[in-house]
């Protein structure tokens, strides 16, 4: 974008949000080039709108000027989903963090996109309710971002992911319209399930400005068990044994040896440092049920090779265990300056062999790979540790990531469970979808975003061309995103 165009655009945006909340100073916009992934790209202009109406106007202005738009709020994406890879305008929801309504009796709440996931549950707690999807980054990630990626979390095993908990959306579309899709409460939806279509679309079709969510009464009792295993294989087989036993816990999480060390260093929650793997399991419900389920589950764990099964003795210990688990990715900062996290899914029964293959990749390449993941869903999160300051490591790690995702797809799984395709996994999506599959998805996007301006360069495979709108039909050249908006530094 040339300077004159940028100034003109900035002037129009400032007329909507005020001078303070739209800026193009190259120093300041540099701070919107990153998220929690290793990807970076510079935007031209950053806008911090305060209301849905402002968002709609901002989108309209950008669409009229044919400028790409990338929405972000916490920018905790692990797949580069909020990196403005085609430059243009970044809209950030730092100011739109209000809970608009809590209607506990009707099991619903209405929020702005910038509301932090955990803040919603904290606000609901005094009413005796909570919002179920609990991504590990829930202390920072926002409901808007959760809608974009159809986020999961440990407790989605039993209760379902974001799409199961969002009933309706208000959306700013590239046309400048502010529209509502879905119902304002559970069970009231009629017509096409457009909410389902938008949840998980990663901001490529529109930007959510208001979100109607389902809330749920807090379970009377929650019990957390930690089962200690000698190795990952035994623990993986135990997961299948638990599910076969007819009990579906609210959560089954696995951590391997390396992860346990980082987690324990960060949390001091009492994870056993000498274990080969641990499973973290949770059951909830009325006390009698929880008691019975807990005992049965402990029995299955022991029979499937656990050397020890511990039950969190009180709420503080339970919270500490979960805090450790949920801080796991960030705790890797203690082991290595950089990491690259995958989000592959495999059928549960394929866990042992997939993990063994990942281990073999680690041994062959010399890069350490940690595993901490939602075992119950078969949703793997291998973390490859590396140092971006060492030449060649980043490229090597990308190749390892690609290999692992291929492995997952070949096992009958997927290349993403909950982090989204974003920028990083665009090429990997081919492992699960054919050209025709992708073409249909792109045609749907085209309905809402005819000029390809909404979070361009994401989800669909194809080359990224800086500063220009992508061609509508995805370029199916089989290559990975090697070129991330030339001229921007990539490091973490």
């Amino acid at each position, binding site marked *: 974008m040339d300077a004159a165009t940028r100034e003109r655009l900035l002037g129009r945006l400032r007329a909507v949000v005020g001078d303070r*909340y739209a800026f193009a*100073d*190259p*120093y*300041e916009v*540099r*701070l*919107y080039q*990153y*998220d*929690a992934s290793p990807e970076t790209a*510079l935007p031209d202009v950053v806008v*911090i709108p305060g209301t849905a109406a402002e968002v709609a106007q901002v989108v309209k202005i950008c669409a009229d000027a044919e400028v790409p738009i990338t929405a972000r709020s*916490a*920018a*905790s994406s692990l797949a580069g989903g909020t990196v403005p890879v085609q430059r243009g305008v970044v809209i*950030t929801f*730092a*100011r739109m963090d209000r809970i608009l309504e809590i209607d506990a009796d009707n099991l619903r709440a209405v929020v702005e996109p910038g509301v*932090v996931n*955990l*803040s919603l549950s904290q606000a609901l707690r005094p009413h005796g309710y909570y919002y179920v999807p609990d991504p590990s*980054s829930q*202390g*920072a*990630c926002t409901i808007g971002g959760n809608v974009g990626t159809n986020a999961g979390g440990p407790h989605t095993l039993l209760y379902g992911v974001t799409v199961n908990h969002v009933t309706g959306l208000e959306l700013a579309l590239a046309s400048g319209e502010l529209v509502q899709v879905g119902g304002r409460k559970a069970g009231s939806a009629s017509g096409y399930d457009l909410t389902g279509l938008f949840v998980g679309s990663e901001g490529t079709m529109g930007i959510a400005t208001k979100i109607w969510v389902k809330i749920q009464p807090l379970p009377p009792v929650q019990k957390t068990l930690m089962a200690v295993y000698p190795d990952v294989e035994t623990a993986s087989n135990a997961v299948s044994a638990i599910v076969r036993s007819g009990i579906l816990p609210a959560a089954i999480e696995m951590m391997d040896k390396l992860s346990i060390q980082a987690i324990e*260093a*960060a*949390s001091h929650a009492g994870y056993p440092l000498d274990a080969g793997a641990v499973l973290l399991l949770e059951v909830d419900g009325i006390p009698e049920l929880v008691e019975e389920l807990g005992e049965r589950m402990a029995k299955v764990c022991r029979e499937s090779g656990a050397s020890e099964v511990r039950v969190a003795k009180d709420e503080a210990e339970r919270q500490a265990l979960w805090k450790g688990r949920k*801080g*796991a*990715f*960030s*705790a*890797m*900062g*203690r082991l290595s*300056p*950089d*990491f690259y996290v995958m989000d592959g899914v495999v059928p549960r029964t394929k866990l042992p062999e997939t993990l063994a293959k990942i281990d073999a990749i680690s041994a062959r390449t010399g890069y350490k790979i940690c595993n901490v993941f939602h075992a119950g869903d078969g949703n793997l999160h291998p973390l490859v540790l590396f140092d971006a*300051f060492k*030449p*060649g490591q*980043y490229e090597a790690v990308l190749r390892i990531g690609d290999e692992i995702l291929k492995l997952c797809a070949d096992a009958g799984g997927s290349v993403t469970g909950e982090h989204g395709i974003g920028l990083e996994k665009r090429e990997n999506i081919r492992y699960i979808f054919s050209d025709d599959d992708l073409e249909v998805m792109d045609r749907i996007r085209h309905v809402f975003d005819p000029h390809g301006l909404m979070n361009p360069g994401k989800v669909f495979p194809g080359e990224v061309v800086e500063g220009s709108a992508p061609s509508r039909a995805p370029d199916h050249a089989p290559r990975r995103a090697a070129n991330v908006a*030339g*001229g*921007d*530094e*990539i*490091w*973490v």
Partner: protein
Amino acid sequence: MTELATLDFKRQIDRDGVPSPAAGIDMDLVRDCIHCGLCLPKCPTFRILHHEGDSPRGRMWQIKEAALGLVAFDDPRFQAHVYQCFNCRACETACPSGVQFGSVMEMARALTPPQNRRDRMVRAILLNGLLPHPRRLRVTGWFYRAARAARLPGLLRRTGAWKVLPLGKFAAFPPVGDSAPRQPRLPALTPAEGTRRARVGLLTGCIQDEMFHGTNRRTALALARNGCDVVVPDARLCCGALASHAGEAQTAERLAARTMDAFTGLQLDAVVVNAAGCGSNMKEYELQLRNDAQRREAGAAFSRTVKDASEFLVELGLRPPARRITLRVAYQDPCHLVHGQKVHQQPRQALTIIPGLELVEMKESDWCCGSAGVYNLTHPEISEAALASKVGHIIDSGAQVIASANPGCILQISMGLQRAGRDIPVVHVMDLLGWAYGDEGQEPPIVRRAMA
């Protein structure tokens, strides 16, 4: 406006290798940050300003860029974001990667010239001109207390003069504290009562001793009542906390050396500190003395003996006081105690041992009140925004008295509550404990009534 150099960093590493970071910044500490963003919702300045550049992650990113030479330390935009930080370290508590944000920020500030005239004045007058000099400090303290004794604050309030005078709001709404121009010093040794359990040094401090001498006396009393010999070194000491947090590294280093030397060779089991900012600084003397080859190692050992007053007394096991104080009290966590020293429960335990005292929790008790060292002098507007939400939470808590553990917070919150027209005194945890142990003097009326 100058365009910044844009670099393809990957290509640059391949070609030239990693650029050597600026001297004075520990790149390993900087790279602990993986920019996951978990700190953002816990950052008070991000909540007020909504800008990534004013978030902990954004600041770490900028410091990394400056350290690698991509932006200049004296770039006004860099200066603005670096000095707009409270340095409250709430982000450290939120960070699973273990980023030592406070240390990195202090290193960066040491290389970053102050942002504006107001900031330069605060440094010249307060940090370098007054606090390191015991005699000047004593004279200033005398004038401060004499002005209080002459009821100047009331005059400033009635006439509205506080609104136009520099520092008027602080002068017009003084905290519970000293108002006798002449005041005795603490004895060199306050002997233990009952069985002797420990021999401790007590830092009386700079501002603390001139404005809150009574709090020091009550701290010594609480220690003595719990079986401690309390040793107060002869020299009047400023530990250098305000200087180090503001990036005045040389002054901070000199004061750290002087403070450490004063407590050396006294055969102490611990050095007790009742000001959170000072305690936090003294627990990090290894960092402050990193360029002092003679003292660097001793600094680490010294830091291990430093304890916050509540932390030390609760560890020792508090003897229950005899006097009842029937009050509803909320505790405000000073940032440099809860985030800087990870001391969270002990002050609450010290309060609840007082018979009759009911502890209530306010919302966001561990959020910065905006005092933040000299921040309320250098950045009054942002500081006021933080104070406003603090005052709101205090009022909602229904507490009759607020207890805290740092002179800066006590000053700031006390001023905020008085200006809001609320008669809710703000005192130190050691004040309440000292009164419960039988100290007489300076009790606000509501406390006196509660003891009757």
